[in-house]
Each structure stands twice: as C-alpha cells, then as structure tokens.
C-alpha cells in the first residue's frame, strides 16, 4: 500500500528522453556568457561557441569570470565538419546532412538547433504521408467554418513557426517525402517568405525573421538524394556525415551510450570490456568489408552503424541485468549479431558465416582467446 503513491508519481512524469536544450541547459547558458563576440542576427550563441558546444572543450575548462565549466563532447567526428555546418546555417542556404543510417545525423541537427535557437522542437518528420500542410500550414477546420479564414484559424507548421520566430527548423528524413512535397521548401529557402493566399492583407505573407534556417537530414540507404529535384538541391549545402573513423572513440561511445540507455531503464552496464571490443570490432570489419588486420571480408547489405552497436550492447546489458540465469554476454553475442545482420537480405546470414570462417577463425588460430571462444560458437549463427 505504501509503495503505491510512489509508483504513481513515478509514472506521472518520467520522460524517457529530454531534448538537448534541456539536458545541456547549463552549458548553453555558460557558453552564451563566454563568448561575447558578434553573433549572426537571431542567434543565441556565436558561431565559435556553437562549435565548442558540439565538439566540447577538450580537457580544458571554459572560464567565465570566476566560474569554469568543461564542455562535454557531444558529437564524435571531424571538427571542420561542424564548422562548415555552422557557417552554412549563418548564410542563405539550408543545411542538408546526408549519410548512412546511424551516423548521428539527427543528433547533430538537434544539437545545432538547440545551440543556435535554443530549441530543437521545431521539427517535421518526413514520411511518405507528409503533405505540404506539414511543411507550410493547415487549418483548424472548426474555427475556419465558424469564422472563415482568419489568422487564429491557421495552424502553422513547425517551419512557419520557425520562420516567424527566427529560429532553426528541422526536417528529418526529407527524402522520404514525395519529391513534389519536398519542393514546398524551395520557395521558403530561396524567397524566405511564405504566402498564405487565404488570408488577405498583411497576414497574407509570412516573412522569415533573421535567424531562420532549415536543417534537413537524409539517409543514403533508402532513397538517397537522387530523386530530389535539382532546384531544391541547389538551396542546400550538403554535408556527408561519415561513420566514426577511430576504433577507440567508437568503442568508448558505444560503452557510454549503452550505459546511458541502461541507466534510463534502471540498470547498470555490466558488459565486459572485451565483449564490447569484440562487438565493435565485428561491426567495423563488416561495415567496411575489411578487417582491422587488412583481410578482406564480405560486407552484408545491412547497415552496421554505431547506433546498431549501441543497441546490441544495451540488449546484452538488459539481458544480464534482468535475467540472472542467462548465459554470459560473449556467448550471446553471435546471436545478437545475427539478429542485426539478417534484416534485409537472407543472404547476409551467409555473409556473416563467411566472416566467421574467414576472420574469426584466423584470429582464433592466431591464439586470441576471445575469438577462439567466438569461433566455437559458430553453430549459433548457422540456425
């Protein structure tokens, strides 16, 4: 009986994920005070501070007066990429982040919007069902019928809101929208205004305020950017976001994110470091089609992204945390790997077997214990 109210209150408000601007609110406030240089109109931070917010301040703390704060790195990758993104957003073109799924494009766009405008909420998720209304505006039909076309009856899209408030709007997976729908962005990006013919007079034209811009993301797997119209492409600067190049950085990222995900579900990460090493190694080998030693292996058709690796590490952690009698993580690893690989194409299972016969066996033969154990588990991926 006593525990019930507690459970209720816990149920009342425990958001699974908070937006970047809330999680990093202190850093954002700090950085705003840190660099007092010139800001592009409508920006909350200077370009330099935005870059620092995303790549972090390294080992040194940022100092403002007596206070000092170490800015945590939030995006693992090339600093110059972030610099180009920031410079693009200060200009007249939108920013289109392209890359393989799971390369943290959406996270990057969220961080940029949070740092520049203080909100990452003005977001449209592109799907096959996205219509022009989602990018322009819709109507509250009850009001529309009751009072006729009237500014109050207008339901602005997140993009229209961003235009009028001079903030960054985000379009996720823009290439999933039909090309005709995507093209609604052309006039917004080039003329920086949106006409609302239903409203007469001044309300009939919405102008983008200083600070407005668009960050879109697109993944190269599904439809790519090939169907995007040339006219729209020219309104964007493109940035290709690559998978993480450095093994150690990736391993640490997987560990950190898996631990964070487990913490959210109330468990601690107990997965062994060597299991994580094996996991990340296998993902990287299969992603590029070449092992760390330089042996050729066959790439599966599935995306072997860092995000997927985090997913596997999290699952391993959850299994260990809630099923005390389950097998050890290393024994479970081949099964999870198979689950990731066998997604799009049944032949990928054969490719994973090939990886086992080629790379895992050679490592086992070379006397690496971890890999010898994995080689013994080959039967688990044959099923």
């Amino acid at each position, binding site marked *: 009986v006593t525990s019930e109210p507690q459970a209720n209150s816990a149920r009342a408000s425990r958001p699974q994920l908070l937006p970047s601007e809330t999680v990093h609110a202190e850093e954002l406030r700090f950085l705003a005070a840190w660099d007092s240089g010139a800001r592009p109109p409508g920006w909350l931070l200077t370009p330099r501070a935005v870059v620092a917010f995303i790549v972090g301040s390294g080992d040194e703390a940022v100092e403002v007066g007596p206070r000092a704060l170490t800015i945590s790195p939030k995006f693992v990758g090339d600093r*110059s990429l972030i610099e*180009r993104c920031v410079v693009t957003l200060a200009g007249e*073109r939108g920013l289109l982040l392209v890359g393989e799924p799971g390369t943290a494009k959406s996270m990057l766009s969220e961080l940029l919007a949070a740092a520049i405008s203080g909100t990452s909420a003005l977001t449209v998720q592109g799907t096959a069902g996205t219509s022009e209304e989602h990018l322009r505006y819709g109507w509250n039909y009850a009001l529309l019928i009751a009072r006729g076309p009237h500014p109050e009856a207008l339901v602005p899209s997140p993009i229209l809101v961003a235009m009028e408030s001079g903030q960054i709007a985000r379009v996720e997976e823009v290439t999933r929208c039909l090309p005709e729908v995507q093209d609604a962005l052309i006039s917004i990006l080039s003329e920086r205004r949106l006409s609302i013919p239903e409203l007469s007079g001044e309300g009939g034209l919405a102008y983008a305020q200083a600070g407005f811009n668009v960050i879109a993301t697109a993944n190269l797997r599904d439809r790519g950017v090939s169907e995007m119209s040339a006219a729209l*492409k020219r309104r964007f*600067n*493109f940035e290709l976001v690559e998978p993480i190049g450095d093994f150690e950085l990736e391993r640490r990222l997987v560990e950190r994110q898996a631990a964070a995900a487990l913490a959210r579900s109330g468990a601690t990460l107990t997965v062994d470091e060597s299991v994580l090493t094996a996991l990340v190694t296998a993902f990287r080998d299969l992603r590029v089609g070449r092992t760390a030693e330089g042996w*050729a292996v*066959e790439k599966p058709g599935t995306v072997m992204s860092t995000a997927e690796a985090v997913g596997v590490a999290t699952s391993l952690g959850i299994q260990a945390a809630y099923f005390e009698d389950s097998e050890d993580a290393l024994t479970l690893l081949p099964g999870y790997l198979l689950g990731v690989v066998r997604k799009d194409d049944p*032949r990928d299972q054969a490719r994973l077997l*090939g990886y086992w016969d080629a790379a895992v066996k050679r490592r086992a033969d070379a006397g690496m214990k971890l890999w010898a154990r994995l080689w013994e588990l080959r039967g688990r991926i044959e099923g």
Partner: protein
Amino acid sequence: VTPAGTTVAADVDPRAAVETLAAWRTPFLIGVRHHSPVLATAVPILLDLLAPDLLLVEMPAELQPWLPWLGADGLEAPVALAAVRADGSGLLFYPYADFSPELAAVRWAVRHGVPVEAFDLPVSRATHDSTEQRTRLAPETPAPLSEALGKQLGTAGGGDLWDRLVEVRAAGARAEEVRRAALAVGWALRLETATWGQVPAGDLQREVWMRARVAAASERGVERPAAVIGAFHAPALLSTEVGAASPQQQTWPSGGRRASARREKPVEIVTSLIPYAFELLDSRTGYPAGIHDPEWQQAVWHGGCTPEAAIRAAQASIVRICRALREHGHPAGVPDARESSRLAVTLASLRGLSAPGRGELVEALQTCLAQGEPHGRGRAVAAAMQQVLVGRRRGQLATGTPRSGLVPHIEGLFSALRFPGPRDAAGVEMRLDPLRSELDRRRYVTIQRLDVCGVPYADALSLDVDQLTSRWWLRWTPSTSAMLELAGLRGVTLAQAAEGALRLRRAEAERDQRVTARWLLAQIEAAAECGAVELAQAELQALTREFRQQATLVELIDAVELVDRLGRGHVPAFDPSIELREQLTDSTLPSLIGAALNQVEGLVGSQRTEDAQALLALVQRLQRGDAGARVLGDSRLRWALERLEREGSPLMQGAGGAVRVLLGHLAPEALGERLGSWVDVGVERGSQSALAGRLRGVLLMAAPLLEAAPAVTRRLFARIEALDDPAFLARLPALREAFDVLSPAARQRFLDGTREDERLVLEYPPVLLARWAAGDRAGWEAAAGLDTEALSWGSEP
C-alpha cells in the same frame, strides 16, 4: 643533447628557442618548406634586408654548376634539377616553381651577383637517402605534438600543420614574422622527432656536412652568410660541432662499409636541369617533392600573399571551377559560386584566419557543389577542381643552357644494352628471354618503358604462347628522337619518364572519368612491366576497392590471373617484396575471388555464353587454390550454385549443375538424371528452348566432364533413346542448337567418347531405315484407326 648536437629537452622554452634561431647570424637562417608561396614571397625581402655575402642553399654539391642557369633571367618555372648515379640508381629530384623559396633565393643571388653555394651533402657521399627524404618537411615519426596541435586547429598531419601555422596565418604578415613562424614550426617538428622518434641517420649525416661547409665559409672570411634550408634542419645549424674532423672520417651507423668501398672507386653522378610541368608537380600524381594544387599556389604567390589577393584568388578559382563543371554538363551557376566563396571566407574567419587557404577552398567547394554524392556529382566537382587548381603550366630553360636529361641518358643506356642508336640506320632483330638472362631482362624492361612513354622504337614480332620469350624488331627513327624530347619533360631517366607517363595517364583518366575496371587492369600491368613497383602497388590497392564493385565477372577473373602472375614473380620487371607477395595472396586474391563469387549470384538471369565461360574460369581457379573458400566458406559457394541451378535462366541452370559436378557438390549420376528429365519435359516450344539452353550450359562447362564421366552421358542418351521418333524429332532442333556451342573438334571428341555404344552404328542405309520407320508408323496409325468392335472378333475365334 641529441646525436645532432642540438639541445632539445622537453622543458625548453619555445619562445627562447625560436628567438635564438631567429637571432643566429652564422648563418642567418631562413627555414623553409620545399614549396611555400609565403616564404617564396618573403625570401627576396629578407635577403634585401640582410644583404648576405654568401647564399647557402640546401642542394647536393653536385648541382653547383647548374645554379647560374637556375637563376638565369630567361628561365621560366616550373623546372627540375636532378642528380642520379650513372647506373640509374639513387635519383634525387628537385622540382622548382615560382613559389619555391630556394628558386626565389637563387634568383635573388644571381640578380645581385652574390655567390651561391649548394651546401648539402653530395649525392656520391650519401649512403642512404631519397628525394622524399631530402625534400620533405620532417621525417615521419609518431607525432603526438602535431596531433595535439592539429586537433586544436581542426586538422591533422604535418603538411597541414605547416599550412595552418605558416601559409594561411602569414597572409599580410611581415617577412620577418613569416620567417619566425617557419622557424618555430621547424623547431617544433624537430623536438617532436627527437623526443618521440629518431632523426634518420641520413639527415644527421647531411647536417654534419652542412655545418662543415658553414665553418669552411667563415674560415674563408665570409661575414654574412645566409642559409635557405628546410625548417626542420635549421636548428641543427646552431651547433658548431662538425664531427670528429670532416664528414669523410665519420663512420655511419649503417653505411660505413659502403662508404669506405666507395672511397676506393668514385661514383659518377649525372646531373641535369630540365623543364617541368604543373601536372607532374601536383603531389597527387605521386611525383617526388610535389605539392597539392600548384596553380592555386601560383595564384597565391602571384598575389603577393596579401589577404585581399588570397580572397581574390579563391574567388577566381571558384568561378573557374563552376565554369568547368558547366562544361561537363553539371549545373553550377553564379549563386553556387557566390555561396562557395562566402563559405570559404566565413570559414576562414571562424578559424581565426585572415584569408581562406587551400583547405577552406576545398571544403567550401565540396559542401556547396558536390550535393552529397561522393560518386556522380562529387567526382565531377573533384575533376573540375583538379583541372583548375592543378593547371597545365610548363617551364622553359634560359637560352644557352647546356643540354641534359633523358636523351643523353638514353644514348648511354642503349649502348650498354647493345641496342641500335641514332647513328645506326639499320634495325636489329632480337630474341629476348627475360626470365633467364639478366641482360635480356633489362632489355625487355627498357622496351616496355619506351612503349609506355609513347616512343616508337621496338615492334613485337612474336610472343611465345608461354610468354617467356619474345622476338623484337628494334630501330631508331627520327620519330624516336622527337618523342624522346617530349618524354624528357617527365624525367631524366627512362624509368622515371615511364613512371611519369603512367602517373599522367592516371591523372588524365581521372579528369575525364575514364577509370574503368578494364583501364585499371591495363594500368597495373603496364606499371608492373615497367618495373614501377611503387606505382603498381598503389594501383593494386584499387583492386580491392572500387574495382570490386565495377568489374564484370570476366574482368574479375582477368584481375585474378594478373595478380597471380605478379605474386608468383612471372613479370620480369616486377619483383614483389615478401610483404607485398603476402598481401597479394592473402588479401587481394581472396577479395577478388570473393567479389567474383558474389557475381555468381548476379548471373542468375544471364543468357550470355561469355558469362558461363567466366563462371568456368572462376571454378577452375577455385580448384587450383583454396583462397576463395577461405573468404566465403565453402557453404557460400554451394549456396550460390544451388540457387543458380534452381532459379537461373536455362543456360545458367545447366552451367550451374555442371559446375557442381566439377566441384564434387553433386554426383554425376544426379546430373545425368536431371539432364534426362530435361529432355523428357521438352514437349512444347517453350520448354524445348529451355532444353536447348540447359544443354548448352552443361556442354559449355563440361565438355571434358562429359567425356570423363560416362554416368552423365549414359543417362542422357538413355532418355533420348527411349523417345519415339516424333518425340525425338520435336526435340531435335533444341538438341542441335545446344551442341552448336561446341567447336567441331569438341563435338567429334564427344562423339568418339560415346562410340563404344554399338547401337549407334547403323547396320542398314539410313534411307532404308527411314522407309521402314515410315511404313511402321503408317501401319500403326492404320491399326489405331480401326473400329475396336470390328477387331474384337480376332480374339474370339
């Protein structure tokens, strides 16, 4: 104290160290990188201020006679100085452009009548070094300092570090500030190398020599010497220590024995000064001592390295690149150019630079123009950038410069090989056996190199089937001389010119987007035949990358054969190292075979006999080694072949089945059974053409199999013989079509293989047999047409 005698300790104050370097006067130090627009601009100003009475430049002493010609008024850069041993080994190559500080210094000295001395270690005394070693900024060592700096500056690597700290920051700076910045970078790299790595013995040897030359100069009474020297070596000149006495008496770590041997017999060194070209100066062609994008460097130098000029140069380049893109049919207009140049300039200011450098320019172009397509449009942008930023500038020597370079080298080489030269009117026929005779090997390689340079000289009369020996017709014609002059632009030795020609081929193919799988194979083969081992090695890397995706099955098999030949050392000029050999057999070959196996899956719908033949070649290859199985596992191939047999086009069904028998995955009897059943189902037109296709597939693969495995044929013929005549006749066109794929000889062998079956020998003339058959059939039909009621009485007498 390092072996160089320079004090570099971790707790040294960098400011004080750079101050000491800058204040040094014996000699006055100008630390440079081999190519550097800002230093090339600063050098004349610095020299004007100092007015030295001797200029020391970092070139081997043998090049001394060329210095007046290098600084001569009529000379137009780019040009190159070269020094090479008479036997063609140990080539040192120094290309110079207007933006090379050494050239600027030599020009200044010649113009002002100041003596210049090439004060680097003579090539004849050097025990171990290379152009790369002599002209790079710093040796390659673990570089935690550069990495830390690079990370802070958002870049990585030594070259980039110099660009970030000297080139880009120097825009608009005073000459003395530039000099200090350069000395500081050199000092930092030196500290890094000495702390975490080791200064190479060759560098130390040269520095001792250079210190000795400085000491000798002051003994002669020189008062204000100035040295233009690699920034990395500048700290080494602070020491006055010149070794025990003079360089000759030193014993060097690994070259002592060779050095003493050399003292007994002086080495003859051939030097030359030749015109050069920007295409070759671009470091991506892999030519020694180059720099990225020479035309861009030229533009920066031309503008005098002010920020305004750098911005103008960036804008001009961007506009030209957009135009080049449009010429290739990609839209790129004024808005694109405007946005690219805005991005480049803003990016520079975000990074605290006064003007965009090459890095910002490249980043801006990629972001604004490439539209996220690394292949299609991205390639076009890269090609346009190369066209505009590399340029096609050619150099010219001043009138009166002595003749040197390739042509004299060729004349010497030909007489050593006993090849007919320019004075022999008649041609000569030669039979070469390059794998057995060393002389023939050299001759063969020379012929291959001449061919790559486009020099008409040798015609192949015949190549033996085994490709071991060959006959050639050799003759020097006027066009030989003409083409040699042209080839001389690319090098001073034939080997270098051939390699240059191959590198240019790559650059041109990339520019015109002609790098196909077939092209790459030809390029690798040519590079290997010319003995351009490094180049061949670099090109071989591509085999496991784009090539795997682009190549057809036939090309993949060709690649496998080529790699195999290279790995076994069957190409005369190509002697792979053990590592390379291992890489070829352990990595490249399996990767290619893996890609080929992948394509087996893609053959499912193919109707082309070439594809079936390629499949056969692949399988034969697999039977010879286990490389493929190692990559993919045996199960993978089984999977693919089973699928081929189950779901493929008729041709591929037959081929797949036969291949499975060849590999032992399927019993011959089972295939025979299946063949027979294919015959049976050939009742209507569609299934008959399928029958033809399937049989063709089997026959293509397995003519030898059918001869060898009677189990297959026996069942096939059993089914055919069981057919009655109309059924046989209906299938006859299909059977004929199928056997058409065999050559007449193969058909005959096939027939011979089945002769043992006596029933195939006709005992009566065929015409008679046909009549009997017709009679039988008529009788049968007549009987079938009879009223069964009427027939019934026959059984009830």
